[in-house]
């Protein structure tokens, strides 16, 4: 089932990418990133069956990081929204030098 799992993983990942590229809502983009993480997790789990348990450990860590990321990211979005009254990234260019 390895090949199939990788297939699904790749498709899901691509969908996530397309989402990031086409959407401008910060929360949705954020969720797309989560989707991409999940897609990667799927391949990790699939590889774990073929190559050893380390893949699962990795998934564990990815989830932890994702949780942390979600907490901080959402906090940032909230702060941003308070500041700008929008989460549309087109209106936000704080990164511009």
């Amino acid at each position, binding site marked *: 089932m390895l090949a199939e799992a*990788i297939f699904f993983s790749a498709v899901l990942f691509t969908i996530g990418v397309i989402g990031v590229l086409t959407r401008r809502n910060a929360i949705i983009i*954020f969720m797309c990133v989560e989707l991409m993480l999940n897609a990667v997790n799927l391949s990790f789990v699939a590889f774990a069956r073929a190559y050893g348990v380390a893949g699962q450990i990795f998934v564990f860590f990815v989830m932890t990081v994702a949780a942390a990321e979600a907490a901080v990211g959402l906090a940032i979005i909230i702060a941003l929204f308070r500041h700008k009254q929008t989460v549309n990234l087109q209106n936000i260019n704080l990164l511009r030098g």
Partner: protein
Amino acid sequence: MEHYPLFYTFHFYLFGLVAVASAILFVTRRSPVSAAMWLVSTMFSLAALYVMLDAPFIGVIQVLVYAGAIMVVFLFVIMLLNLGQASEIADVRSQGWRLAAGLVGLALLAEIFALTRSSSVSGLTLAPGTAARAVNDAGAVGMVAGPLFTTYLLPFEITSVLLLAAIVGSVMIGKQRRAADAR
């Protein structure tokens, strides 16, 4: 080549397809709330796939952490900010951009397939059923917990620090600006 019963194969494909379909629906929804709901659906399907891939513990925490905790937070935030109205009309990029994104996606897919096909590390492959036996021997949790608390103890501890930092950070960031000014 390992042989799988049809029942297994059927469900594997089923959940896989559900995941893909939900994901497609997720990215195409205008409303953040419905998008989030479809994402939850994807994650449940993935949890099922994890279980079928001999990772029951991961499947469980996928449901608990992702579908349960993270996505709930997302929904909370969406509602808190009162998004979901058509106010976010400029959310989706124009036709041309979407087309380009689709092409990029296709290219990406193609490249991933080309790469995964060309390089397989068969020499390292475990004997079929090793993972399943491990689940039986050590138990669903023990199989992960064993390495996690021995070999990967240090990263594990660092993760806990990371989580702590994330908690403190999100509290600080999310705090009202007025509080900062008052000081």
